[in-house]
């Protein structure tokens, strides 16, 4: 019963003012925070852009409890599917970009990390993202696929928190997104086969019939060459098929 009430309230709120004609609210995975600050959104929309960055699962949970947004970008399919199942997202998801992992070491590489097998070393302080978040589930997939048994000392709630701890030297090494390693200027160790494991970022409008301005903005995010260039420079890969999942 209460679920119905909350859902109704959310629908009323969303239907009422998802985009009042002044602002577009964008919720995006935390790994995209640098990219969006670089995109000169003023050039693509005369609306005011409000952004919220957090782990994809946090964003989905917030939307599920009635938070307002116009566009959602998640770092993997699971999170987007959950948002759709919750009824928070009504638009059709489209592939936005891809991201792969990098084995990042603390400045100066004090742990002398040379390969992925070092992740099994109990003498090193190692970090991963929590398996519940996209970065963490990809890391588990990758380590299993590459045959390494990792025993992390911490499972951070989002990839940026992990990148910060590596950058501070509190963690000897960890698996973060290639984009975050680049953003923080972290030293990375080449691991053959690691970039076979990829997370597909999905983007969708919250409403199935969004205001024209929101659709225009979404279109720009997907097709504008300047925005695509910013993504590529940051280390994101092109979306695979571009089809909905």
């Amino acid at each position, binding site marked *: 019963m*209460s679920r119905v009430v909350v859902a109704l309230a959310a629908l009323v709120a969303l239907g009422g003012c998802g985009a009042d004609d002044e602002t577009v609210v964008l919720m995006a995975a935390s790994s995209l925070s640098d990219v969006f600050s670089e995109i000169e959104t003023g050039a693509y929309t005369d609306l005011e852009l409000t952004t919220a960055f957090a*782990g994809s*699962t*946090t964003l*989905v*949970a917030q939307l*599920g409890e009635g938070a307002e947004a116009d566009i959602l970008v998640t770092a993997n399919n699971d999170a987007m599917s959950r948002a759709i199942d919750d009824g928070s997202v009504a638009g059709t998801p489209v592939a936005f970009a891809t991201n792969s992992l990098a084995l990042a070491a603390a400045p100066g590489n004090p742990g002398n990390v040379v390969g992925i097998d070092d992740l099994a070393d109990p003498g090193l*302080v190692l*970090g991963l993202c*929590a398996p*519940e*978040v996209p970065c963490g589930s990809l890391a588990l997939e990758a380590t299993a696929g590459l045959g390494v048994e990792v025993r*992390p*000392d*911490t*499972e*951070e*709630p989002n990839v940026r928190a992990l990148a910060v*701890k590596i950058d*501070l*030297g*509190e*963690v000897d090494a960890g698996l973060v997104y290639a984009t975050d390693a680049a953003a923080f200027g972290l030293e990375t160790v080449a691991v053959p086969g690691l970039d076979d494991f990829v997370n597909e970022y999905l983007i969708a409008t919250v409403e199935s019939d969004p205001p024209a301005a929101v659709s225009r903005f979404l279109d720009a995010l997907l097709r504008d060459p300047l925005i695509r260039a910013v993504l590529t420079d940051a280390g994101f890969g092109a979306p695979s098929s571009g089809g909905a999942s």
Partner: protein
Amino acid sequence: MIALVVLGLPIAGLIQRAPWSSMVERLTSDAVLDAVRVSLIVSVSATALCLVLGLPLAWMLGRARLPGERVVRAIVLLPMVLPPVVAGTALLFALGRRGLIGQWLDRWFGLTLPFTTAGAIVAATFVALPFFVTTVESALRQHGPNLEEAAAVSGAGPVATFWHVTVPTIRPAIGAGLALAWARALGEFGATVTFAGSLGGRTRTLPLETFLALETDRESALAISLLLLSISLAVLVALRGRWLLR
């Protein structure tokens, strides 16, 4: 009246959404039991540290005439007003492996605090200490030094006076202070996750477990939240508002 609603509504929300039928099953899952064990170890150890460190500190503030007393008190109260994540960040910069003091701890003793249960205890102690110290200090100020002076006149040394006169007088306040410190240590999140990280069975306390569960298994998060809420309520009822009415 409005304040009561503001305070009571979230609690009512929790109780109303709770998964009553699967409560026991959720609260006895491996992840939750691990978190309970870690929480107990961390909160009880932190409370013990608060007693050991806080009693002398409270005595200094409540009895001794310190130069710069206001500054000392401000420093003691700081963790109370500092946002927990800021506290955790500060701890990281001071006691982390590359921290101000932490780097020496690591170099000389091979002692690292981040990502260990000990680190979680340090974070919890840091935020809980002011609660203990203020409660005890306030009691010391209330029960002036008269009895202690009488004891001194009768020939008792300072240590004997402390144990046999001061402590029994303020015992209720010490008890209340410990209860508050324990509740605060149990509920700590921001400082713990920033300084000690999060790993099941080692540093993932109940609040951290709740945060993780909220995103993937909301029902379990609700169950744990209710558990923590009940514990907090029990502590408050046991104190029966005594410390509030000082």
